């Protein structure tokens, strides 16, 4: 009995992925009366969102999973990345709003139509977007650097409350200053990369492909740097800052670097979110639908494991998506849609607590060996070093 239970719990990761996949395919299929093309487009939408969200989770994992930085303001970097990228790719503003007669804001960047340097290569279809993504990463990184100065030297919960505060402050600025980003009227018509080359029905699949490439690139970058000496210092900082500084490494410096790099990855996520949704309004960046969700994803997937972060995004957003689908059913009156979405958020909140209590290392725990050098020796049949402890210092008192 005990071994059986063990087998089940050790296979939770693939099991949950299979269950979630079944739910996100079967529920929309059943609702649409087993119409396969509708189901496929729903699944593509699901995959697009999962891929975008996994970018945020990869960034958060660099900060929390590997370095132990308690960033609770993912929404701030999301917001900054999205709006920066949107400003850089937007073309001329649309005609004035037909209802109110108000002009939309003219943007400073607006490379949308202007960056066609080599028409033969079709640069207008991709160059502005690359510039926008880089700018989004840059601006998010600068914001992270500015936050790091006052908050990163202090205890973890100071950083948490500061980042929550900054995320809310930025959202308040977007809402209260309509001349910046149209306030709650939203920025409309954000273009997408390569969209001129495909029909709109094909484009959804193309965008999933682009996102897979982007997530793969970020995954390789993060894995490569985590297995480098730099990455080992990050984990040393996470485990014991005092011991790390005794070894001659400045923990504040490394924490700042990890915080900035994580934030830049989140900025990239914000940029591609805007390209996908075509429109941005401040409501998108409410903490519940962003920061909380990403934290749950990283905690469920496994802090300190990039694959875990992606799996967490898949599983948790799958649950979220399935609950949204359930809302579409004809439900009895007392189960209102408010109640279902509230139930979903309650579950997300409780999930964080339950993971902390029962499975603190998540679905995919941190891998034991994270040095390329050791791995190479192991493959040649040599002896590896001792396995480092798992996950962010969950089992150790804070010093």
């Amino acid at each position, binding site marked *: 009995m005990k071994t059986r239970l063990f087998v089940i719990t050790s296979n939770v990761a693939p099991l949950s992925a299979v269950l979630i996949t079944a739910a996100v395919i079967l529920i929309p299929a059943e609702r649409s009366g087993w119409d396969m093309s509708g189901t496929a487009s729903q699944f593509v939408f699901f995959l697009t969102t999962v891929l975008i969200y996994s970018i945020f989770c990869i960034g958060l994992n660099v900060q929390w999973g590997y370095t132990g930085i*308690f960033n609770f303001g993912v929404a701030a970097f999301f917001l900054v990345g999205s709006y920066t990228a949107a400003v850089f790719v937007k073309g001329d503003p649309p005609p004035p709003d037909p209802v109110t007669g108000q002009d939309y804001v003219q943007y400073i960047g607006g490379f949308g139509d202007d960056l066609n340097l080599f028409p033969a290569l079709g640069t207008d279809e991709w160059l502005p977007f690359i510039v926008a993504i880089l700018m989004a990463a840059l601006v998010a990184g600068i914001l992270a650097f500015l936050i790091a100065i006052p908050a990163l030297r202090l205890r973890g*919960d100071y950083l948490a409350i*500061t980042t929550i505060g900054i995320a809310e*402050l930025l959202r*308040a600025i977007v809402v209260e200053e309509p001349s910046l980003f149209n306030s709650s009227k939203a920025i409309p018509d954000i273009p997408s990369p390569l969209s001129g080359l495909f029909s709109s029905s094909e484009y959804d699949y193309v965008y999933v492909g682009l996102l897979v490439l982007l997530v793969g690139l970020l995954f390789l970058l993060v894995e490569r740097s985590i297995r480098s000496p730099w990455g080992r210092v990050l984990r040393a900082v996470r485990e014991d800052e005092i011991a790390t500084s005794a070894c001659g490494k400045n923990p504040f410096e490394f924490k700042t670097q990890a915080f900035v790099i994580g934030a830049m990855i989140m900025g990239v996520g914000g940029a591609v979110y805007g390209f996908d949704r075509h429109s941005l309004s401040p409501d998108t960046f409410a903490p519940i639908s962003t920061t909380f969700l990403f934290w749950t994803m990283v905690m469920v997937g496994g802090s300190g494991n990039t694959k875990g972060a992606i799996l967490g995004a898949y599983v948790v957003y799958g649950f979220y998506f399935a609950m949204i689908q359930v809302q579409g059913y004809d439900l009895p009156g007392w189960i209102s849609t408010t109640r279902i979405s509230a139930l979903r958020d*309650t579950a997300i909140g409780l999930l964080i607590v339950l993971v902390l209590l029962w499975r603190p290392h998540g679905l995919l725990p941190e891998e034991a060996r994270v040095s390329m050098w050791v791995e190479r020796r192991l493959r040649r049949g040599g002896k590896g070093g001792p396995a480092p402890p798992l996950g962010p210092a*969950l*089992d150790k008192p804070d010093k």
Partner: protein
Amino acid sequence: MTGPGIFLAFAALAIYSAVDHDTRKFFVTGVVVASVYALGAIGLNLIYGVLKFGHFAQGDSMMLAAYLAFFVVSGSILGERRDTQVLPVHLDDLPGSTDPIWELTFGYSLLLGIIGAGLLMSGILVLLDRLIYRRLRERRGNIVIFSIASLGLALAIRSSMLIFWGPNPRSYVEGIHPALHLPFDIVLKGDQIFIIVTAVVMAAAVYSLLMFSKLGKAMRAVADNPELALISGINTDQIFVWTWVIAGWLIAVAGVLLALQAQLNPNLGFIIVLPLFASAILGGIGSPLGAIGGALIVGITQEVSVGLEVSVFGEHLLPLAAGYKFSVAVVLLILILLVRPQGLFGREPA
């Protein structure tokens, strides 16, 4: 010198806004808001001092307590409106319980409701400690883990309020009530006077409990050095329970006062977390008395900055748009972390 400097700058702002006739009403509202913040921040600092973690569910617990009071007073459960699905027995049924006392809007049923909310809230917090925080303590987890757990709980509490009572704002008593005109041109509602008086009484009670009772002495000992307290024969586990009980009462009173000041809605909790932490950190985290000072600074600055008119070189600096009200707390928080992270009244870090 930064500490006294900031304090003097704030005192100048407070005195100016109190003396100037146009801004006096913002100053007075600020004091009312500060009373609510003070109770919440004292609770925050109490938990921080004894249990050593930032209780991010503080705001949402206050909101939950306010709903619990609403529940025992009106008996309303599972309903978008006040009169749907009412429990057979509730406090408003008591004879004469809704007749307004003095110039207040409510009768003695709400006073009983506060007591009911206090009992329920302490029970809930002790239960959460048994179920969650104690297990994490036994694992000797990193402090940040406690904060993450409390953030998860905050989200769960906020969303479960939506399940039970829906998104519509509620108030304990419906209808408007006139303001009182006091000397010095101070205009206050009866309920606002009740808020200030209750907060002062509650703060004084907690202060004397901490300073003059054996329990308070033990709590201060645990806050100072848990290991030393344990080997001195103090049952630290029991002290943790008592801390949650006292915090529960503070949260319940603060929550009901908050709902009297604003309207009761599920978003109330999240909005107030930032001013609460700003007050606690400004006053020096872990220091219950400092929290009162911090709360006064945050509350008054917040209200005055959306009322006071200030122009520099023809540019309008103040008043801020009303949407920035809670951003003031964020700015104060960042400022204090930059110049004096131990808080205005806190000790120098060791």
